[in-house]
């Protein structure tokens, strides 16, 4: 509890929501790394997932506009390179409306950690289709069924140039916690896509009314990335590939900015 703003608990998350699990993992990751919360800025967008640190986590929090937390975080990190800057927001926020910022922050390889909570839906606004909603699922704005292909976010971020990319579900709390620690430690753009239940806005239309239904689904459909090499795209269609996608060294943006300045100053 020492990392939380106790005065505003209990949280406003619905029962069965995965946001509490993500908050828990985030606080544990901070604790296990022994990080000083005074040195952390959590930057969030708009949506239920954005409420995970804002305001529940006791650190500096910048609760921004819908889709733009990565842009705000870039300004923060450049001016405060020694602080840990963490972006937490939903799939609609970071990958939907803010998708362009995601691609370009990964391309620059900005040294921040991004925890994207993918609950397959626009939760806060009451269950409209999201770029991650599986094909065929009915939502409030796809009343018959969703006819669009869902976005593969982790794969996209890996292709865009991030230093560290992983995908986990809220069923895999221990690997997720460890992965968050790795994201903190990694220099460069670290990205974790976290699949998370939303029984209230997403599940109710497909008969998944309990958080547990999601955990069962995650358990059943998850497949480790190490095991997918010989599987076809078709075979993987209905699976959730979990694990570490990318872990590499690549020039980091704020460091390059600083080097450039060092070269100029005094000239």
């Amino acid at each position, binding site marked *: 509890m020492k990392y939380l*703003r106790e005065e505003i608990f209990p949280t406003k998350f619905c029962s069965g929501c995965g946001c509490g699990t993500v908050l828990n993992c985030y606080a544990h990751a901070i604790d296990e790394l022994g990080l000083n919360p005074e040195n952390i800025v959590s930057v969030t967008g708009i949506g239920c997932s954005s409420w995970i640190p804002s*305001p529940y986590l006791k650190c500096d929090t*910048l609760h921004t506009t819908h889709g733009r937390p990565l*842009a*705000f975080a870039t*300004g*923060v990190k*450049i*001016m405060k390179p020694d*602080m840990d800057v963490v972006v937490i927001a939903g799939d609609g926020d970071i990958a939907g409306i803010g998708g362009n910022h995601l691609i370009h922050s990964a391309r620059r390889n900005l040294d921040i950690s991004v925890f994207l909570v993918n609950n397959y839906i626009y939760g806060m606004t009451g269950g409209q289709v999201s770029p991650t909603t599986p094909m065929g699922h009915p939502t409030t704005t796809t009343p018959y069924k969703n006819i669009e292909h869902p976005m593969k976010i982790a794969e996209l971020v890996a292709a865009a140039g991030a230093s560290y990319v992983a995908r986990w579900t809220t069923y895999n709390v221990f690997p997720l916690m460890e992965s968050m620690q790795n994201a903190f430690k990694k220099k460069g753009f670290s990205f974790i896509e976290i699949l998370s239940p939303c029984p209230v806005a997403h599940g109710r239309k497909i008969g998944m009314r309990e958080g547990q239904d999601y955990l069962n689904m995650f358990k059943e459909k998850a497949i480790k990335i190490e095991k997918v090499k010989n599987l076809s795209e078709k075979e993987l269609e209905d699976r959730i590939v979990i694990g570490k996608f990318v872990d590499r060294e690549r020039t980091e943006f704020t460091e390059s900015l600083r080097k450039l300045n060092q070269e100029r100053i005094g000239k």
Partner: protein
Amino acid sequence: MDYYENYLKKFEGKTFFILGDEAVAYGALFARCNFFGGYPITPASEVAELIARLLPNVNGYYVQFEDEIASIGAVIGAAWAGGKAMTATSGPGFSLMQENIGYAVMTETPCVIVDVQRSGPSTGQATKPAQGDVMQARWGTHGDHEIIALAPSSVQECFDLMIDCFNLSEIYRTPVILLTDGEIGHLREKMVMPKLKDVKIVKRPKAKDNKSVFGGQLIPPMMEFGRGGFIHVTGSTHKTSGMRDVESQEVHEELITRIYKKIETNREKIVRIEKKHMKNAKVAVVSYGASARPSLGAVERARRNKKKVGFFRFITIWPFARKQITELGKQVDTILVPEMNLGQISREIERFVDCEVISVPKIGGIVHSIDEIYAKIKEVV
């Protein structure tokens, strides 16, 4: 070592022959700007190009973003991380920035947005000047708010007002807009860099604790990230502590009224105008920015021809110089308002005077000629 002092010494006191856009960049430097986020657009790109060159020399940061939404977002983030931050754009980019300008208003974030206005709507005449964003600067973002916007009429003023913009943003903890136009931005003119000791720089008041970063007094002090304040910055309605409270009518009313009053109650301190040839004038030509130049030319010609015509120029567009314009309306019988739009400020003037107000619009990417404005003067004198 103060990289800034050292570097600026190269320029102080010197005379330059440069573009208005370049003067904006130098003005930002003299104001000690250390973060610029932007996206290229005519006729504002020259601001970014020069500042990208200048900032690394003073340990500042220039980043070209993927769009203008990201640019203004990063500017606000940089400001909360202690930076003096700015962006520069033109119409289409200014439109994209509106949501986050509202965020800066709501979170009381000091920052400067330069809008080098061009002909619109949409891509309009992309390379040509206009003054069509005057009302967008005032009301472009949703919700009740006040805004500060300054309009330069010369290259020297681009430099001087840029420093004022930063100072006003720090004093009032608010975004400030330098509302220039493509004509002034691309005008090449003589300007003199001041001596460093003559440049007044205002710094934002710093909070000792996190209790009242968002209220408690008209203009609360700020606390940057990383100071152990555990501050919570949100564009949602919030209490004095920064914590969200979007349910209570009282909390919202108190917050928005205070943010509004910061500027409203300081109107007379902020407002700046210029008056010339007003003695015994019965007609006044009122303008701002690029169109103020031929306006003054026409007034001077009228005076040479013994016509009782005066000149009035807004240096601050917002907050509006209500008192000054009301006084003017009492002195003269007619106000002519040349502007490079279909009468945006002309209508605003009408709200505050009883005399006749005649709009003298000019659109299509060119500034009024002195002849055109003089012809209007002759019609009414």
